């Protein structure tokens, strides 16, 4: 499968009070056409920054992003704006993603206006179509303002706005974290349905492993700006190679009282991204760490078919 999106050695650096913060450090990933790649990690791991860097909303300080053969990192101005129609983004806070002073009809039609669809009739028709596709009644919805809707409905509107141009790649940045449990399932189902209907490729960013598992074909795990492990979903869950992946799996609360919560989880917290540990960044919390881990940065190596881990002492 040819890669639709190719990320090579991507680095995003911030200056924070004189020091350099590497939000994303030398990350390389590929997303094939039609697949869903889940990107998982805890706060501070850089997954959101990565998503924005791919779209060039935050310019990477190093590395390349190639989309369907075109190098996005080299594009600028008009060329980049034209490319944007093919890559879209869905955000975490659905209500904040909508302009509080514009009507829903306006908001969803905006992409069409930007891309030069002049005919009002056609705009309205396409807005109605996409609103119906996401399960909203256009007549009820188009004239109202965002604050009149719930979180779940706003997220549907955001998805409608993202899909009206029929993009090829959609980056979902924590699309369900801010929603109630019962609504999450609705939106996840909706995303899957939309993916099928529009033939989308998804980069699904989240911190909840169970959510990511439900929708992804492959999963990439990030920690403090670096990739720890990449692999097919079921394989990764069944036989994680990186200790951090295993830690994440153990920490998930299981809604079954007969399953005792795992004891003796790795102590401590993620170190500050401003002062990451040398070598392998996870070594301060890893029960298998040794001197090599402090001296040498582990590279992604193939552990099993299609599964890569950046670890000197992988599990299994």
């Amino acid at each position, binding site marked *: 499968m040819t890669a639709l999106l190719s990320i090579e050695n991507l680095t995003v650096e911030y200056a924070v009070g004189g020091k350099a913060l590497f939000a994303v450090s030398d990350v390389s990933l590929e997303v094939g056409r039609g697949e869903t790649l889940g990107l998982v990690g*805890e*706060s501070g791991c850089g997954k959101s920054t990565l998503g924005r860097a791919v779209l060039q909303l935050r310019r990477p300080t190093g590395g390349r992003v190639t989309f369907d053969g075109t190098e996005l990192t080299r594009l600028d101005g008009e060329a980049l704006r034209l490319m944007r129609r093919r890559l879209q983004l869905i955000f975490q806070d659905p209500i904040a993603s909508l302009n509080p002073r514009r009507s829903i009809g306006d908001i969803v039609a905006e992409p069409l206006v930007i891309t030069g669809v002049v005919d009002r009739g056609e705009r309205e028709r396409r807005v109605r179509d996409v609103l119906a596709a996401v399960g909203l009644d256009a007549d009820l919805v188009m004239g109202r303002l965002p604050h009149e809707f*719930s979180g*779940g*409905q706003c997220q549907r509107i955001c998805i409608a706005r993202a899909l009206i141009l029929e993009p090829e790649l959609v980056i979902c940045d924590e699309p369900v974290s801010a929603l*109630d*449990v*019962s*609504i*999450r*399932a*609705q939106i*996840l*189902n909706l995303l*899957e349905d939309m993916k099928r209907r529009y033939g989308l490729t998804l980069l699904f960013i989240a*911190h*909840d*492993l*169970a*959510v990511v*598992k*439900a*929708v*992804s*074909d492959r999963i990439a795990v990030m920690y403090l700006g670096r990739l720890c492990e990449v692999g097919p*979903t*079921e394989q990764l*869950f069944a036989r994680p190679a990186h200790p951090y992946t295993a*830690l*994440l*799996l*153990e*920490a*998930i*609360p*299981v*809604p*079954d*009282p*007969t*399953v*005792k*919560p*795992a*004891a003796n*989880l*790795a*102590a*401590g*917290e*993620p170190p*500050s991204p401003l002062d990451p540990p040398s070598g392998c960044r996870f070594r301060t919390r890893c029960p298998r760490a040794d001197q090599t881990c402090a001296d040498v940065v582990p590279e992604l190596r193939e552990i099993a078919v299609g599964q890569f881990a950046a670890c000197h002492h992988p599990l299994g």
Partner: protein
Amino acid sequence: MTAPLLSVEGVSVELPTPRGALRAVDNVDLALAPGRTLGIVGESGCGKTMLSRAILQLLPKRARLGGRVMFAGRDLTNLPAEALRRLRGPELAVVFQDPMTSLNPVLTIGTQIIETLQAHLGMDAAAAATRGVELLAAVGIPAPAQRLRQYPHQLSGGMRQRVAIAIALSCEPKLLIADEPTTALDVTVQAQILDLLAREQQRRHMAMILITHDLGVVAGRTDEVAVMYAGRIVERAPTSRLFAGMRMPYTEALLAAIPKLDSPPHTPLPAIAGRPPDPTRPLAGCSFAPRCRYADGRCRAAKPPLGDPERAGTLYACWHPLGLSESASA
């Protein structure tokens, strides 16, 4: 049987709004014995936070409270403000969801802990400082002596929550109410914080109410679970029995809607259609009826009472409870 430490009797909370009176909490009964953990589960708008505020007597001024809250034999709804203030800390403590707003951002951690100890336990500054360091160490904060001089924004979210817990536990309360204590935290930190709460609870024989929207959080860590929907308790049972056999369709749907680790990817999730009800427009019948797969005319006409028809210590409010044959439901 030990007398309950906390007894919530017929509590309801009404808020006046421009759109009419909002019944945030509707006739809730709860009981909690010393040293036990109660989990309250529900989504946003179900009234769980208002309920915790009602128990703590921290409701907004314009709220109207009905019913009684008995704590250690005293009716909190009738206590004068000064007596209530003395209860909070040594007997009743709370940990909130967002430690950044529950800690004062312009005071050092040390000041906040020491002030609490001085105010409630009458310690002098030096003794309070020593105790403060002990408490921080007990909640797993590295280098506690230095932390005393730091400000909340210098600590990570997990650390701040540990500090909030340390402050809450500093006066050895009999009851701790934890309102979504880990929702804002990463999953690995969440596990650590929940472990910490469980450990401290065991050590101090403290009663705890754990409020959350996550059924996974209550599964392994509570003795009893109460599920709230639209301001009422719709199911209440000992934890193991609840998960083994849910009676209320809402509870079952809630559990089913959580993506499971052991199901393969791209499995469609059984979503609950619709949205939680509008609290300003209460329905005549069961609040869950519009979204319930099993709802019928009776469900829409009359609200099912919360009862224990099986006499098994499990309460639920449903005309057609799950797992029972039709003839069993009156």
